[in-house]
C-alpha cells in the first residue's frame, strides 16, 4: 500500500522542524511505525526523564487516530502498565486536523497534567488521589529509575 502524501509530509516536517523535547523517527522498513521520545515536562514528576514510545499510523490514518503506547515504564494515572494512554484526542476526540506532532504534544501535556479522575491505571490513580505527594514521589522515582536520560 502506497504511503499517503500526508504521512510523507508529516514525517518530513517532523524531521525538518522537530518539536523541542519530542522526537519521532520512522522505521526504515515501515514508514508508518515511529520510534518516539518525549522529554518529561519541567516542573512535573517526569522532569529530567526521556520516555520512549511507539507510534503507529493505521491504514486509514488520518481518518483514525495514530496508535501510541509508552515503552518506558511510567507511573501516571492515565497510563497503564502496558503503556497504553488514556487521552481523548487518541480516541473519541481524534480529528484529521490533528497530526503526529500535535498528538505528541498532547501526550507531553498529559505528563504535566495527570488526571486521576479518569484513570487508566486504577491503582496509580487511587494513590494519586489519596496521597498525591507520595504518588508524585513514586513518579519521580520511576522517572529516575526507568527514564533517565
Amino acid at each position, binding site marked *: 500500500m502506497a504511503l*499517503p*502524501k*500526508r504521512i510523507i*509530509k*508529516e514525517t518530513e516536517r517532523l524531521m525538518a522542524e522537530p518539536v523541542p523535547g519530542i522526537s519521532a523517527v520512522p522505521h526504515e522498513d515501515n514508514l508508518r511505525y515511529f520510534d518516539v521520545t518525549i522529554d518529561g515536562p519541567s516542573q512535573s514528576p517526569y522532569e529530567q526523564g526521556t520516555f520512549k514510545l511507539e507510534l503507529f499510523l493505521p491504514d486509514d490514518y*488520518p*481518518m483514525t487516530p495514530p*496508535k501510541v503506547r509508552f515503552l518506558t515504564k511510567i507511573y501516571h494515572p*492515565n497510563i497503564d502498565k*502496558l503503556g*497504553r494512554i*488514556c*487521552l*481523548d*484526542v487518541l*480516541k*473519541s*476526540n*481524534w*480529528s*484529521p*486536523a*490533528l*497530526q503526529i*506532532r*500535535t*498528538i505528541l*504534544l*498532547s501526550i507531553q*501535556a*498529559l505528563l*504535566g*497534567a495527570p*488526571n486521576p479522575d*479518569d484513570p487508566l491505571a486504577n491503582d496509580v490513580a487511587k494513590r494519586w488521589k489519596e496521597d498525591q505527594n507520595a504518588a508524585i514521589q513514586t513518579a519521580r522515582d520511576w522517572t529516575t529509575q526507568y527514564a533517565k536520560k
Partner: protein
Amino acid sequence: MSSSQQISIVCHECEHEWQRRGNTPGSLRCPECASEFVEIVSIRPRHEAEAASSRQVTRRPTLEPGETSPLNQYASGANQALSPYRPPSRQHQEAPDPGEMDISAFNIANRAQGRTGTLMSFTIGGGTFGGSTNFTAMPSGRQDHQPFASFGQSGQRVAADSYEHGYEQEAEFRHNQGGIFGFHPPRPNWEPQEQPQRSANQQPNPQPFADPFQNLFMHIMGGNARTAPQTDPNNSVNGLLQIMSQLLAGSDNLRDMAVNDEDLDDIITHLMEAESHGPPPASSEDIESLPKKALDETMLNEDGKAQCTICMDDVAVGEEVKYLYCNHWFHEICIGHWLQAHDTCPHCRMSLKESREKYLASKTTAAGPGTPNVIPPTPDLDQGRSQPRRHSTPTRPSSSRRQSHSHSRNRPAPEGNNRFSAANFRNLLGLNNNSTGSREQRN
C-alpha cells in the same frame, strides 16, 4: 527454565516425535525428515518428567494425572494454518515409549508463538459442543471427534501447568477457563481421532477426582459442581457450557476469549479502541448539501498557499472546496470521508447541524435574512462538544490547534483568533445564502 527440562518436539511433516533435554539452542529440525515444520509440544522440569514416567506403567486407558494430553499438542499447533489435530497415522507410530510419557506439562514457552491460538481451540470447542453454539472459528475436522471430553481434560491440564509453574496470575485466569469448560470431563477420551484404541478409552473414568487439579477445579466451581458430576457429569458440564455459550452467543469473534495476561491485555486494548469511536456519522444528505466554493486569494495563508488540513495537499486558487457552516473548508473528498465517519468539523468539532443552526441564528439576529452584512459565526469550541472531554490537557486546544492552523490563515480560528476578515466572509456568504435558502425551505 534451565537445563533441567525435558522438551518434547513433534514433526508435523512425518509425525515423528522426539525428546531432548534442556534448552539446547539452535534450529529445531526433525531428525527423521529434516523438516522444520516442528513444534515443541511440552516442556516440563525433569524431576516431574521422571516422576511421571515412573508411575506410568501401561498405556493410557485413562488419562492419568501426569500423562500427556495430546490436545496440548494440538492446541499448540492450533495457531498454525494446518489442522491442529494429529493425523491418524500418528497413533500407530507411537510405540509404547517410556520417554513419551514425559510429555505432560503444557508448554509455557509455546505461548510466545501461539499465545492466542493455544487454548483458543479449547474454548471454541467447548462452546461448540457443550452449548450447541455454532462457531465458524472451529476447525471443521474437529466435529468428527469428541473434543468436548478432551476439552475438559486439556483445560485442566493447562491450568494445572500454570499452577505448577507458579504463574499465579495466569494460573488464576486459566483456572477459570479450566473450571468452566473442563473441570470434569465426562470421559477422558483424549484421542480426538477415531482410533482402534477408542475401545480402551470408553470405559468410564474410575477415578473422577484422582487428579488433584480436578479437585482444585471442583473447589473453584463451588459446591454444586462438586456434587453434580459424580452422578451425571454430562449434565453438569453441559449446564456450565450452556452458560458459557450463552455468554459467548453475543460474541462475533471467539478470539475474544483470553487465555493469559497478554491476551487479556490485547482484548482490553481492543475494547479501549472500540470504546470511543467518536461521534456518529453525518447523513449523506447533509454532506451532499454542503456548499462548495472555488478557492480565492483571500483564503490563502501568509505564504500565499492554502492547504486542505485533512490530506495536507496544497489547494490552488480556483479549485473547488467544500465549506462547512462553521466556515472551515476542505477538499470535498477529504471532508466527505471524515463526515461519513463522524459528524464533526475536524477543526472546531461542531456537528453539521449545530454549525448550520448557529450560522442561521447569527444570520437572522445580526442582519436578517438575505443581508450580506452579517456577523461571522464564531464557533465556540466547547459548544461543539456535547460530552465532556476526557483528559483535556491544558495545552492541547491552544498549542495543537495552533499547530494545525498555522498554515491556513483563511480559516477562522475557533478560539477567537480574529484572522477571519469580514470581506472574506461576505464573499462566502454570497454563496451560502442560496444554499441555506433551499435548506430553510426543506426544514
